[in-house]
């Protein structure tokens, strides 16, 4: 099962590292990353494989939300199907 992690907020040092290490702690494998910086707004989307995750989905989402609050970022973890169903026929 794959999920999409999105991170939006002000660009600061170490955003990617902090999200990636949270993934590693949860046994979540990062398969693809795209990021862009518009002026000083940072937007990143990460495709991750959660089939071998060591924690339930809900907890991963909660941990990412806590991380987002700490770093003043908006971080969402969502099942990839929500995007597939909305944008692909």
């Amino acid at each position, binding site marked *: 099962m794959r999920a999409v992690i999105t991170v939006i907020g002000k660009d600061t040092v170490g955003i990617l590292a902090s999200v990636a290490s949270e993934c590693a702690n949860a046994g979540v494998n990062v398969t693809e990353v795209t990021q*862009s910086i518009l002026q000083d707004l940072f937007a990143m989307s990460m*495709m991750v494989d959660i089939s071998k995750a060591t924690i339930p989905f809900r907890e991963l989402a909660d941990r990412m939300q806590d991380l987002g609050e700490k770093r003043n970022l908006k971080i*969402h973890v969502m099942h990839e*199907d*929500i995007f597939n169903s909305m944008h692909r026929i």
Partner: protein
Amino acid sequence: MLNTHDILETITMIEDEHLDVRTITMGISLLDCSDENIDKACDKVYDKICRYAGDLVKTGEDISKEYGIPIIHKRISVTPIAMIAAPCQSMNPVKFAKALERAAQTTGVNFIGGYSALVHKGFAPGDYALIQSIPEALSETEHVCSSVNIGSTKTGINMDAVAKMGRIIRKTAELTADRDCIGAAKLVVFCNAPEDNPFMAGAFHGAGEPDCVINVGVSGPGVVRAALAKAGDCDITEVANLVKRTAFKITRTGQLVAQEAARRLCVPFGIIDLSLAPTPAIGDSVAHILEEMGLETCGAHGTTAALALLNDAVKKGGVMASSHVGGLSGAFIPVTEDAGMIDAARSGALTLTKLEAMTAVCSVGLDMIVIPGDTTADIISGIIADEAAIGMVNTKTTAVRVIPAIGKAAGEELNFGGLLGEGPVMAVNRHSPARFIQRGGRIPAPLQSLKN
């Protein structure tokens, strides 16, 4: 890899534009719960609902968390209780309402619909007693919703039931006058009631439905409005196309949630209700979509045309996105539940007569309209008869959910709180239809040809 633009668009829809799945409603048949002993029947009703819907709320919350999409309501609809109560007709059916209330509290759902009767051609055993008990049932329960179908295109309109419902609505409001007359907000009178509607207060589980089913209602007026705002000054053809495209995306989300909920609960998927359901929150208003199209305020001349376009485009976009479509499907215009409608009603731009015209081209009918507390039962029946006639002749569902504000006059307000919202008391035409209503009998079913 998914396109970043698409990902951000979805997140913006959810975060900023109030995209949500409005309701997952589990329909449960209670036909096997009848019993001549009313206490036994009530126990069977309670047990069956709790057995089937025990995991409904948790499943909804899990799906919401995993897919990142809010699922606002988890609800239950049941077989019209008049059918279940028929064998014990000498007893007061309010016991069933209390059993439903207990089941709602145990399962954690926020509404349970089906304290209902279908009397579009006449009253069968159980119907009359149930309708008579509605005021008491709604005043003594919190989560139970009631509906009565009084007409259909194939049968005409049961004017005895129309007359009766005028009195029942008034009495329901009177019994809950200390709580802003909230009882009447949980009671809806239908013509052509759908059997698979997931939305309250009119949800019930029709007799032709399977034992248990999952129906889902989508929402997203804010998303449609935002898409139109971004498009700027395009022509009406483009407006319709944009609404279709947006409705498609909204409905696909609902389809995904419905299939997932059905799979996890091991219950068949029924239908998606293609709806634009507003809430009183800013940015979640159907009236604001109409205003975005170019009306100074909802209720202005041109409102009916704009709403017709919106309603049709929502269906066209949604139909392709879902495998089964049903319920009410279309734009809702509940006055107290829509920030734009509330403002338009307060300013006098939106009147009851304009709303009646609007109901001829959109999803439901006269919905969540607060009327003066001294409105007579005959006038309420007149409102019901007019609305039912629009539904009957146009082969569509129409409904009336008006709330007589006991002790209040036009210009004052009621506040229900939460999603039921608040709104001003709207003036009604005070000329009496009493003699017409009191004749009783049935309006014959209309011709289906010679359509002019």
